[in-house]
């Protein structure tokens, strides 16, 4: 079913590319920026578990491994972004790039070069996490800080640079926390049913901790931009707090933080498998909304059928691939 959703989504978004290229490029970038959190968030959780151990990781391992194994999907998925660079980014347009103060960093050759380096490192780390024995911790310890740094710079390139004037030092940390939360939510959906009873409560606590961390970082960024009220920073929020996006902003506060937080602090809910799965599904949906809210205002685009098709296509293909790989020797060998 996931494959069907993915294939139909990709086909419809392909049609959208012909009819309305701009909508497609922004919709695809939003979907990609959400999906990339799944393999990379899963990878980071696998590496963390190698170093710390704990019941939570044992319960999640098969799903995290399946999520990590989908990383090669990035290779075809990045192509529309590369083709649409001048549509998406002011710094990729020859007429605008020379006027930008940060064009020394935001330029097409440098973007492609560092992007290729990130990709090689991520694929290497994913291969390490999938193919080596869990007792091998050294590479995990070195890999985690590298993953954090490369993810930060990659997500700055992909989404923060949509508005070249916007400059937030916590952006990478915030998006990283969001990515790990997204990956954890997707792993908790099946793990809530398969984990041992004690481990379910551990998953609830971990989910709670990440919800709080994400909300803390998000609120700190908002608070500092609000109280400083500088045009280049506040403008980023202004575009995302006017019109229909104001609802998306409020919905994130309510359903990406307040409701899951209120539910997850109740010990009875932490132990309830159905409730845990439902909260994880809610968090995954909110991550998708967050992706649209981050990317689409930069292109003055609402969420239309093309954007919806892109998100379904990307996440559907990711889920289909994860489910298929989950049954293979690749994922099963260390489970």
């Amino acid at each position: 079913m996931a494959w069907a959703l993915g294939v139909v989504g990709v086909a419809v978004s392909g049609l959208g590319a012909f009819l309305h290229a701009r909508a497609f490029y922004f919709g695809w970038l939003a979907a990609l920026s959400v999906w990339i959190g799944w393999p990379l968030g899963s990878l980071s959780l696998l590496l963390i578990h190698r170093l710390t151990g704990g019941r939570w990781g044992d319960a999640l391992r098969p799903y995290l491994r399946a999520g990590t194994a989908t990383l090669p999907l990035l290779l075809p998925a990045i192509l529309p972004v590369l083709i649409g660079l001048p549509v998406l980014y002011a710094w990729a347009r020859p007429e605008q790039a020379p006027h930008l103060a940060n064009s020394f960093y935001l330029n097409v050759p440098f973007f492609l070069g560092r992007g290729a380096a990130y990709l090689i490192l991520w694929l290497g780390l994913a291969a390490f996490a999938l193919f080596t024995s869990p007792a091998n911790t050294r590479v995990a310890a070195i890999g985690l800080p590298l993953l954090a740094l490369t993810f930060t710079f990659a997500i700055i390139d992909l989404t923060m640079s949509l508005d070249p004037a916007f400059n937030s030092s916590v952006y990478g940390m915030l998006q990283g926390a969001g990515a790990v939360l997204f990956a954890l939510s997707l792993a908790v959906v099946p793990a809530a049913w398969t984990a041992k009873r004690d481990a379910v409560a551990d998953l609830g606590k971990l989910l709670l901790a990440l919800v709080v961390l994400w909300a803390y970082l998000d609120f700190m960024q908002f608070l500092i931009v609000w109280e400083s009220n500088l045009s280049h920073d506040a403008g980023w929020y202004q575009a995302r707090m006017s019109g229909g996006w104001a609802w998306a902003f409020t919905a994130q506060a309510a359903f990406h933080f307040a409701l899951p937080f209120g539910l997850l602090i109740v010990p009875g809910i932490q132990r309830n498998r159905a409730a845990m799965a439902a909260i994880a599904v809610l968090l995954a949906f909110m991550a998708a909304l967050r992706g649209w809210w981050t990317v689409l205002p930069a292109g003055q685009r609402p969420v239309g059928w093309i954007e919806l098709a892109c998100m379904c296509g990307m996440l559907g293909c990711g889920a289909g691939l994860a489910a298929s790989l989950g049954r293979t020797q690749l994922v099963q060998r260390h489970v």
Partner: protein
Amino acid sequence: MSDDVVLGHPTPAAVTDRICGIVLHERVGLWWWIALAASSALLGLGVVSVGWLFWKGVGVWGIDWPVVWGFAIINYVWWIAIASGGTFISALFFLVRVDWRTSINRIAETMMLCAAASAGIYPILHLGRPWFFYWLFPYPNTMTLWPQFRSPLLWDFMALLTYVVASVLFWYFGLLPDLAAMRDRARGRGAQMFYGVLAFGFRGTGGQWRHYKAAYGIMAALMAPLVVSVHSVVGLDFAGGETTGWHSTQFPPFFVFGALLSGFATVILLVIPMRHYFSLQTYITERHFDALGKLMVVSSLCMAYAYIMDVFTTFYGPDPADKTMFVARMFGRYAFVYWSTILFNVLLPQLLWVRRLRLNQPVLILVCLGAIVGMWFERVEIVVTSLHRTTLPSAWGDYWPTFWDWALMAGTIGLFLTMFLLLIRIVPTMSIAEMRELVRKREA
């Protein structure tokens, strides 16, 4: 290396005997008197410097335009960070059920209390007219005086006050069963009365333990977000300003990372001599140093990440004044401050990747001392180098601390050490109740 958190098989009774004995029955060593004399001398110097400050005013310090925030804010942030690191060990690691926390949580909490006291006096002194400090608080008055609720400084006051009160309560509440044990073990009537009053009638009944455990868990759950909030608000004090180098959205978590690094370092520096002088090798093992050393590496890597983002966003961002300031920070007259920060907070702790070095106490002491000095330099870097290159070049100026700045700083170090030395002679240096539980669990 032994991975045990306790060496051998001490019985619960032996735990109580050993820990109570340190305070109740053992004579203090000469080292304690020498340390107390030295720290009291520093404290005395601090008292003199505060007296001189009150007599002459804040002009005795090196602060002037444009560097109007000097040692007072640098040392406040430095001390409160050290305190916060202690809370992380005692509260956060309690919540995540880390077994090695049991032996060192009391040392961490006592350290937090002393560091919070040293931190707390700075903002009061920095007010210029400290006798009006209560004006910070929104209270009904006839002067139409009302604090600015949009200012992080007001929230800093609130957060610090809440943190200090909650820390004292958390520390004291954790002490209750131990004070009761001390009361029961004390031989002299005076000591029995003293600990009896402090124990608030704790008798160790089933009902009392049930309530105690539930309340302690709730307090730990409150302390963990509180410590993040107090240091985040300190970060917001800076990030809310338009000053070059301060408007950075990562400041709240960045300040929390710094708190972890300096707090862990201070705990290690206190644990090493206490383990030696009180012969606590049974309860503080290599496992503790291994775990704390790893935490030093993790917090140092977090700092490195924040430093990288600091450089990156400055040059990526649109503000030319920020860039000018940062070049001055790296290559100007305060360059030694910036590079010392990098050396002590990022490079030196990387030694602790190697397990052999984590267990080598001279190396550990060197790295931890380095981290504490490095964190102090970082605050100098944030406060002084940002302010000395403001957006208006005609207003540029330097800052150098005076004798009285150093004297007050020495005084706060004296206050910290004096308080700590006295407290470890009055209250148990480890949680007897938790240690007994740990020992029992291991035997089971």
